[in-house]
Every structure is written in structure tokens, then in C-alpha cells.
């Protein structure tokens, strides 16, 4: 039997790129649970896109057996957490399944926006925090400077921080020892009624939903009937186990353990991250705290390229949802694109990740419409409605007032970029509310600004304006009055609903002009002239034209090359599958992206 005193549950939190995934790799490697030859860098990031972009999207878990210097065998349960602002709910779930957090800080970058926000989140969950300075092998590493920042900016003891190189392995034995000594063992009792926190779930085509849990109290064994306390679903446990790199079956999971449960769950909606599992026959009185519905902030619709593929897309969405609890969607339909899904995302990166996963993992050819925030609209009849889909925007005559979500944006930057960053934020309708010198070199600025402005290319510009040095984090703080109009795009006189967007009125002309320009660039010539217009209500405010195709025919066809000519046409037709016919006009997938990326190269 495992003694809970010999278990340590911990996570690594850090600003993006400070080395979480690399450190996680070293943990696994040093614990020798993975054959060195089989080892892939960044083993925990097992999704293609993650590896390609070098970011952690899904939180993952792994158990590492470790014999400490006191001779005791410990089980170290490491949960890798996502690093991007979009995924802060996943960070919070992962964090709440741990007792300790390694706060990783890049030795040359120092404390950044997410270092702070992640630390606050860990403190909220009462985690013991162990500051660790990483990348000490880098020439630009400034370990004493970062120690000062830790004491000064974070209020932790900078002198106690460990200095490591996750890449080279320097300082890691000390780190292992420190986390056994510094992090508390799990509290909770195996004798109480079972309570386990669901912090992730994954779909396994052979076994159904694989539920990732942290057992807080009691035990869970195969044969138990379990109750998911917030959703009310009951299932029978088939298997429980630990996360080695592969799944490792065991007889029971008890208080303090991190592991998985297979319970023949086939329905996605039964598994909600943050929900509590208890024993259906001996239920706990209260679920664990912290359950909340994920709140999406960005909305967009997804349609199949080929309307016939709707059912296939539906299945793909369901499976994706199993791996991505934060994805929210509902059936939607468009005059131009047929049936699809209205989706809510945690942010723009999340949206892009979903798009890429649908295309790569599920081989779906899709169109996404322009992302939108969710507006609050007060109607003249006193009714209050929320609108994130331009197609549901009420007639302007019925609208009393409109409000849009605002964020509190926290930016930490070297002093040199302050001027340019302030102009960027002001241009994005930001209002500065605080300005603090963290030390001689760095400044923390807080702005309140509309979320809608951050959706479009804000992050890229922030990075380019500050040569990559500024860091950014945000919180949604509520609704503020706005002036809103619906911008329609007409192709050959017909409005294309999927291209409509809700925009800030004073910026509408500019936006309309840009969208039309970009559409003109994205739509290829066809046999007739194509007019692209931007309109508000019935008034045209922008216009571009695509001239008709002059020539598109295969030269010279003789008796010997009929097969070849036909194959060339078949190939062209394949290419056309990436097109969506709207009326008589073929719109390429990029046309929809053109609307999305409309602000890309302003200035």
C-alpha cells in the first residue's frame, strides 16, 4: 500500500518559453521510467501542433518513482500545465490537483506577466511555491538579478531559489530533493467517502472516455459505482491506473493519488473538467470546490468546406471536445455555408489550435468565420440579450444600448518600449490605469481596453513593438458601453452572412475598406466580374472589384492526351474543393481568413 506521506503532487508554472516542457522531460528522463532510446523531446506535449509550436496546450500528467536521499521511495506526480493566457482555466484545474508548484523563471528573461499571474493562481489554491531559476547555462543568464526580482516582485525568498539548466540537467538532483522536502504530502483521508477532482479527460477510441483525476479522499476501485456530482451521471468503474508514459493499471486509486479512471463513459457531456467524482453508494456530502463552467470569450462558427461533410465534422467536434474540455459549441447554420457549429473559445490561440487539430488530426476541411466577442445588448423593450453571432444582431431600431467586454491588460516591458506600447494600446482604445517601475529597467503597465481589440493581432504587434521583450496577460473585467454596428459584406450584391461582423462604429469604414481589399486579394478571377462591397444597413461604405478571368483553358488537345487533359481537370477540381461556392462565386478558404486577419499589416 502506498503511504500518502510518500506522494508529492506538483506542477510547473511559468511564463511561456521559460522551460516547463523541457524541465518535465528531464524529470521523466532522470527517473528512468522511459527508455532513453524511446525518448522524444518534450514527451508530455504529445500533440503535433504543440511540438511544432513549442507550446503546451493540454495539461498532462505523469507519475515518477523516485528514491530520495532518505532512502524512501516516493511517487512524484507531475502535472504539466499550459503556458498561454488562453488556457488559464486549464492551468487552474491542473494547479488545484497539486500541493506544490515549481515556479520556473528564465534566468535571462526574469519575471514576466504570466509568472506573476500564475503565481497568484497557485497562491489562491494554497500551493507551496518553489521558485526555480532555469536556463542558467545561457550566456545572458543573470541569476543574482533574478533572485532580486523573486524577492522584490514576487515576495518570495530569492535566496532559496534553486538554479538549474533544464536543458543540460544541471541542478536537477537538488531540485528533486527539494521538492520532496519542501512540498507537503497530500492531505485528505483514504477512509472518508471518495472525492476525486476531474482535471482533464481524453477520448480513447477503445475504452471510451479516460478521466484524469486527483483523488482527494477515499478510494476508487474497479467495480465501484461512481457519481459525477455536478452532472449527476453514474457509471461503473472498469479500470483505474497511473500515468507512466503509457497507462499503468492498478488495483485502486486512494487519497493523494493522481491517475485515471475508465468507466465505460461514452458521452462527452458526462465528463466536465472540475467536476467531483464520488462513490454512488457511499457518496460524499459536498463536491470539491472550484467547479465552474468554462467561459469562452471568443466566438466563431465552423462549417465544413463541403456541406455533405457535416455529419463527419460533427463526430470530429465531439471527439475533439473530449480532449478539450474548454471547447464549447452549438449547432449553427448559415445561408452561405449550410450547417455548422457556433463555437466558443478561450482566446484566439485556442481558436487556432482547434482549427489546426480539426484539420490535421481529424482530417476535416473547414471554414471558420470572423471571430467575435460576446456583446450585451439592451433592447428598447427593456430586454437584455447577449450576441456573439452577427446573424443574431437585432435590428438597430430595436437597440437601446450596446456593451462590449473589457479586459484589464497587464504588460511588463523594458523601459525602452514604453512609448510605443502606450501608443499601441491607445490605438486599441486602451486607457492606462497604472504605471509601476518594477526596477530600474522594467515597468508594469495596466490598461483597460476592449477585448475585441485584442482579438485582432494585438499580441503580434505587442511582440514586434517590443522586439519580443514585453509580456502580456489579461483578465476579463466586465462590460462597458460601446457603439456597435453590423458590417455586412456583399458579393455581387448578395450579403454573405458568414462574412458579416460586429464592429466598433467609428472604426467601421476603415474595417470595411480593409476587408474588401483583402477579399479582393484572396478571390481569384472567375468568368464574370465580381463586386465586393462593405455595407452598414443598406449603405455601401466600401467597394472592390475582381476583374473577370481572361483565359482558363487547356491548350491543344489531340487524340493522345485525352486522359492527361481529363486528369488535369480532375486535379483542378480537387483544388476547387478548397473553395466554397456562394451564389455563383467561388470563395477560397483564405477569403474567410482574410476577414479574420484584417488588421494584420496596418501602418
Amino acid at each position, binding site marked *: 500500500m502506498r503511504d500518502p506521506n510518500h506522494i508529492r503532487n506538483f506542477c510547473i508554472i511559468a511564463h511561456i518559453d521559460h522551460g516547463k516542457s523541457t524541465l518535465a522531460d528531464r524529470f521523466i528522463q532522470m527517473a528512468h521510467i522511459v527508455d532513453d532510446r524511446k525518448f522524444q523531446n518534450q514527451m508530455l506535449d504529445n500533440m503535433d501542433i504543440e511540438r511544432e509550436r513549442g507550446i503546451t496546450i493540454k495539461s498532462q500528467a505523469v507519475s515518477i518513482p523516485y528514491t530520495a536521499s532518505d532512502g524512501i521511495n516516493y511517487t512524484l506526480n507531475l502535472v504539466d500545465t499550459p503556458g498561454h493566457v488562453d488556457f488559464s482555466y486549464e492551468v487552474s484545474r491542473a494547479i488545484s490537483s497539486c500541493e506544490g508548484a515549481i515556479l520556473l523563471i528564465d534566468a535571462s528573461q526574469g519575471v514576466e506577466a504570466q509568472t506573476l499571474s500564475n503565481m497568484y493562481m497557485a497562491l489562491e489554491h494554497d500551493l507551496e511555491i518553489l521558485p526555480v531559476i532555469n536556463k542558467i547555462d545561457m550566456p545572458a543568464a543573470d541569476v543574482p538579478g533574478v533572485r532580486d526580482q523573486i524577492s522584490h516582485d514576487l515576495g518570495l525568498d530569492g535566496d532559496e531559489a534553486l538554479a538549474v539548466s533544464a536543458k543540460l540537467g544541471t541542478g536537477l538532483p537538488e531540485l528533486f530533493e527539494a521538492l520532496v522536502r519542501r512540498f507537503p504530502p497530500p492531505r485528505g483521508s483514504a477512509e472518508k467517502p471518495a472525492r476525486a477532482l476531474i482535471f482533464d479527460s481524453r477520448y480513447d477510441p477503445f475504452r471510451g472516455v479516460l478521466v484524469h483525476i486527483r483523488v482527494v479522499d477515499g478510494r476508487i476501485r474497479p467495480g465501484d459505482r461512481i457519481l459525477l456530482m455536478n452532472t449527476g451521471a453514474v457509471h461503473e468503474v472498469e479500470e483505474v491506473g497511473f500515468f507512466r508514459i503509457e497507462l499503468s493499471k492498478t488495483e485502486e486509486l486512494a487519497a493523494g493519488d493522481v491517475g485515471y479512471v475508465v468507466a465505460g463513459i461514452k458521452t462527452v457531456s458526462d465528463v466536465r473538467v472540475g467536476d467531483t467524482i464520488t462513490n454512488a453508494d457511499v457518496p460524499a456530502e459536498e463536491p470539491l470546490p472550484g467547479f465552474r463552467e468554462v467561459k469562452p470569450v471568443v466566438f466563431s462558427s465552423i462549417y465544413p468546406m463541403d456541406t455533405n461533410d457535416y455529419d463527419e465534422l460533427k463526430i470530429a467536434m465531439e471527439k475533439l471536445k473530449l480532449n478539450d474540455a474548454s471547447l464549447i459549441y452549438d449547432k449553427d447554420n448559415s445561408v452561405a455555408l449550410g450547417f455548422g457549429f457556433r463555437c466558443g473559445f478561450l482566446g484566439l490561440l485556442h481558436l487556432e489550435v482547434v482549427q489546426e487539430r480539426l484539420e490535421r488530426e481529424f482530417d476535416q476541411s473547414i471554414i471558420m468565420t470572423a471571430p467575435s466577442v460576446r456583446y450585451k445588448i439592451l433592447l428598447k423593450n427593456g430586454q437584455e440579450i447577449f450576441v456573439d453571432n452577427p446573424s443574431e444582431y437585432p435590428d438597430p431600431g430595436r437597440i437601446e444600448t450596446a456593451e462590449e467586454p473589457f479586459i484589464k491588460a497587464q504588460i511588463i516591458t523594458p523601459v525602452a518600449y514604453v512609448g510605443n506600447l502606450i501608443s499601441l494600446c491607445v490605438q486599441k482604445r486602451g486607457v492606462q490605469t497604472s504605471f509601476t517601475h518594477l526596477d530600474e529597467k522594467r515597468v508594469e503597465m495596466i490598461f483597460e481596453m476592449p477585448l475585441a481589440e485584442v482579438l485582432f493581432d494585438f499580441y503580434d504587434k505587442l511582440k514586434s513593438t517590443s522586439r519580443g521583450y514585453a509580456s502580456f496577460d489579461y483578465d476579463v473585467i466586465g462590460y462597458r458601453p460601446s457603439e456597435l454596428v453590423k458590417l455586412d459584406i456583399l458579393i455581387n450584391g448578395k450579403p454573405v452572412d458568414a462574412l458579416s461582423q460586429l464592429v466598433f462604429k467609428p472604426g467601421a469604414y476603415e474595417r470595411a475598406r480593409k476587408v474588401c481589399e483583402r477579399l479582393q486579394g484572396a478571390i481569384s478571377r472567375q468568368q464574370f466580374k465580381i463586386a465586393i462591397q462593405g455595407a452598414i444597413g443598406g449603405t455601401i461604405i466600401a467597394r472592390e472589384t475582381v476583374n473577370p478571368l481572361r483565359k482558363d483553358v*487547356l491548350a*491543344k*488537345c489531340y487524340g493522345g492526351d*485525352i486522359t492527361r*487533359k481529363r486528369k488535369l*481537370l480532375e486535379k483542378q477540381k480537387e483544388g476547387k474543393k478548397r473553395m466554397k461556392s456562394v451564389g455563383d462565386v467561388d470563395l477560397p478558404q483564405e477569403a474567410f481568413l482574410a476577414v479574420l486577419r484584417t488588421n494584420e499589416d496596418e501602418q
Partner: protein
Amino acid sequence: MNPPELAPHGPGLYVHVPYCAGKCGYCAFHSRPLGLCPAREPERITEAALRRARSLAERFGVREFSTAYVGGGTPTALPSPVLMSLLSGMRDLAARGGFAEWTVEANPESLDPDTLGILGDAGVDRISLGFQGGQPDPLRRAGRNAGVTAGIRALETCASWGGRLSVDLMVGLPGQDPRGLEADIARAAAAGADHLSIYQLTVEEGTPLETAVREGAVRLPSEDEEAELWAAVREACGASGHLRYEVSSWARPGAECLHNRNYWKGGVWIGAGPSAVSSAPLPDGGTLRIQETRDHGEYLRDPEAFAEEERVPPGTAAFEIVMTAFRTREGLDSGAFRSRFGVSPEDLLPETLAKWKDLLESGPRGPAPSDRLLDVLNPFLLDCMSEMERRAAGIPHGPGGPL
């Protein structure tokens, strides 16, 4: 204006002569420089081609051919005795009274009065001359082997030829000048060409031209420049009285190429010689297509064994007929289509025909393209393909072809 109706012709006999004086930089046809071939190979290849033509004719149940075409490569590059025996062998396969049309392709560097004499004596009544253009620099940059001087001399030689003359011209050569192109057309007309093949230079995969374009060594005309070139073609052909009757073919009325027309109608033809293709309708409405090997060794050993046979299913065959018929101003023969596939094109393509009605006309036997549609045929054909696929079940077994 619709061209005058022509009587159908077929079956056709095609012989491929896989040799040229040198290889042109843009060319993807099967041909080899004659100088690099083993001695006597051309003789053996043409003999093999004739034997093969006879055996294919037997297999296809064809007793006599109504049109013939010797292409390549460059048939006129063959040594005179070889050319003579090839022609005399072909003549034996003609209908009584000879072929209704017998074309031989010629290229400038191998077209002299003696060769013309051989052709005339054998009964060849039509020459297709690969002139390609009279602007030295654009032609050279595209990689054309024959020079302009030879081309102009060949045109002059042809002026004394008593038979019909077709001249090939390319559009879209690097740096090509529209006025020069007009002059080329006028020059061809002056040499007596009643037929012009005017076609877009296409960059074929694996050719030196492709490499040169990719590496930026050769710049092809822009869309606007190309449009100007085609405007010049329209202008000059209007002046010389050549009407466009197919995407890449212009002719004085009555001078349309009968042999090619049989291809575009989906008729029966036999192609002998390396890389040639034979084709005939199958009883189910599909098409039997036989592609000869390109390998000369294999061709000499056993052309039958190394040929590739393809049975094009009826639905695909129907599309191919749509694809080739709409290349001609004459358009589809709805009756023939219905009797082969059991469904009329109007029933198979109602949406496409409606969508494109502004660019369609009614031809002598069914729907036909306007001149404008010939320029934007691909998007029309893609619509046809999609609609036909959707209605593929609409093609039952036809009453059958000759096999």
C-alpha cells in the same frame, strides 16, 4: 456565326514518329534527337509501327481508315527511304480512293522541296508545319530548336506545295511582341495556310523550360501581356479569314482538320508507334484506350505486350466527350451522346447548361460553346464534371459501340 456542317469522318489512323532533329526546351512530346539513335532504329521502329497498326486495326475490326495523320516528333526528319516506305505502308490501310485527309507534320529544318515531293507522290494532301513563330529571341528563349530563318524558308517552300497547309504558332513566348505575332499569322496566310494551330505555350513538368522559369532565367508574359497577344491573334485571323473552330484551331471554312475532329467527337482511332494512343467506344458506352510504350526497345520486341490498356468507365467516357466536344464550336452531338450513353446531355447537365447559358449557343446537333466560352472552358468543364458525378447513376449501359 456557326461554321458550316461537316460530315463525320473516321476511323482515323495515327502514326507516331518519335524522332526530331534536336529536342526543344519546352517539349514534352515523346521524341528523341535522331542523331542519338542507333543506326537503322528509325527504320525498324516505323516498320514495327506499321505492323502494330495492322494488328490494332484487326482487333478494332477496322478494315479501312478514312483519315490519317503522321505526327511526332518530326516525320520529315526520317531518312527519305524510311519515310517513303512508311507512307506506302499506310496507304494500304486507306479506304478505296485514298484517305479523305492525310496529314504529315513537318518541322522547318527538315522540310525541303525533295521531302515535299515524296509526300505529294505518296498521296499526302496536308502538311502541318511547326513554324511556331517568326521572332528569333522569344523563340530561342522558349528553347525552340529550329531557328527563325529555317522557319521562314520552310514557309516559302510550302508556298509551292499543291496540297493543304496548316501552320503551328505559339502564343505566350518570353518577350513575344503582339505586332510580330500578327505578322507571323499574315506570313502563314500568305504561304497558303488554310489552317492555323495557335496555342498557348505551356510549361510542362520536367522540361528545361520549367527549370528556367522556376529559376527566373526566363520570364513568361504577364496576364495582361498575354491578353494583348491573344487580341493580336483575333485581329490577324479576322483579317486573314481564319475562323476559330476549336480552342487552339483556326481554319478557313471547309478547311477544318477532319482527323482531329474525329478525336473530339470520341470516334474510333488507332495510334501506332511509341507513345501513341488508340481509342474506341466499348459496348457499355465506356472507352477502350490503349497506350503504346515509350520504350523503343520494348516497342521493337513486342508492342502488344508492353502496351497499357485502360477501360474508361461510361461515366468518365461521357465526361471526356463533353470535354473534347465543347472545345469545338460545333459542340456536342446530343443524339450521338444519347445513343451511346442512354441519356441526353441536356438531362445530365441541366444546372451547368443553365448557369452558363449566356456563353452557350445551340450548335448543329446540340449545345455548343460561344467563342468567349472557349477561353474560359476549364471552369465550365469543372461544373460539368461535378454535375455529371452527382448524376453518375444517370448513365446506364449504352446500346454499344463496335467492340
